[in-house]
């Protein structure tokens, strides 16, 4: 097959057409499937954390715990809320500026930073919650065991999240590498 044949075949490819109404809807963030689901998840988690922050002082005896423990918990929850917001903003971020290779490099760097922040914020949240709820309780063998199981499950979740991000970043880095090699 000649190169010109390839070009004419390419030009002949027809894809399904969207009408102007469908295209117009697709231009808006509120109709974007990924942004919509991130937003929904972020709102749910944000509300849950906000409700927790609002009630913990009385319901979970925050007033009976040391000030430092309270401050650590508030910081951990606030950091996690901020992280959700950042994830939502990152998905909306316009990625194209000068050329594809540089844009991919800059996006991979942003994803790498966000990947670290997700892991750190989840770790801080767990530490904050653990410190708060274990403060002042007497540890028995069963409680130590429960703590170990919770920590293990949490680390497992972190590893899975990390793996998803790592795969996405690696895919982009491989493309950059392909562009750079001759």
């Amino acid at each position: 097959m000649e190169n010109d044949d390839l070009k004419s075949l390419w030009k002949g490819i027809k894809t399904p057409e969207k009408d102007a109404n469908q295209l117009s809807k697709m231009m808006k963030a509120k109709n974007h499937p990924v942004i919509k689901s991130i937003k929904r998840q972020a709102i749910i988690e944000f509300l849950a954390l906000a409700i927790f922050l609002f009630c913990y002082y009385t319901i979970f005896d925050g007033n009976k715990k040391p000030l430092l423990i309270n401050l650590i918990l508030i910081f951990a929850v606030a950091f996690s809320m901020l992280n959700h917001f950042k994830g939502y903003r990152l998905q909306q971020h316009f990625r194209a500026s000068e050329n594809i290779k540089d844009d991919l490099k800059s996006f991979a760097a942003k994803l790498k930073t966000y990947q670290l922040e997700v892991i750190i914020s989840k770790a801080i949240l767990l530490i904050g919650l653990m410190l708060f709820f274990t403060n002042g309780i007497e540890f028995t063998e069963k409680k130590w065991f429960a703590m170990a199981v919770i920590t293990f499950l949490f680390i497992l979740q972190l590893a899975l999240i990390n793996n998803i991000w790592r795969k996405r970043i690696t895919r982009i880095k491989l493309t950059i590498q392909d562009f750079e090699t001759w």
Partner: protein
Amino acid sequence: MSEATFLQLLNSNQGIIGKVCSIYCNYKEDYEDLFQEITYQAYKGYPTFRGEAKFSTWLYRIALNTAMSSFRKKKPLLNFVAELPDETIFSDEEQHNQNQHLIYAIKQLNEGDRAIITLYLEELSYAEIASIIGISENNTAVKINRIKNKLHKILSNGK
């Protein structure tokens, strides 16, 4: 520039988005998600379109960039028929098989090579391709030759 102007330009160039989605997605659900992501990114970036290049060239840059950086569920390519997006995606009956074959062949390339060959098949000059991708013109020429050879090999093996 107004939303209506953008919509008009997008409407007449939507085939570009469709083609990019076809070579980067294996399933209809992924295809639709990527189509929307590209449309959203293009609209968001439209104020940066200075009109120095053709709108179609600009849209290709946005579409390819988005396709390569978006999250997609990677599913294994099982065989020629199974990996195609959806039979209804293509409407031209006469060239249907040949078109499928070309898309299948392009999908065998790595993601970067798919972008380069797409721009080549759209008849952009080596200088334009180099500038869009962000590599030198010499590197572009070398890569295009290599990719064309790969593509011919895949196409002839598939017959």
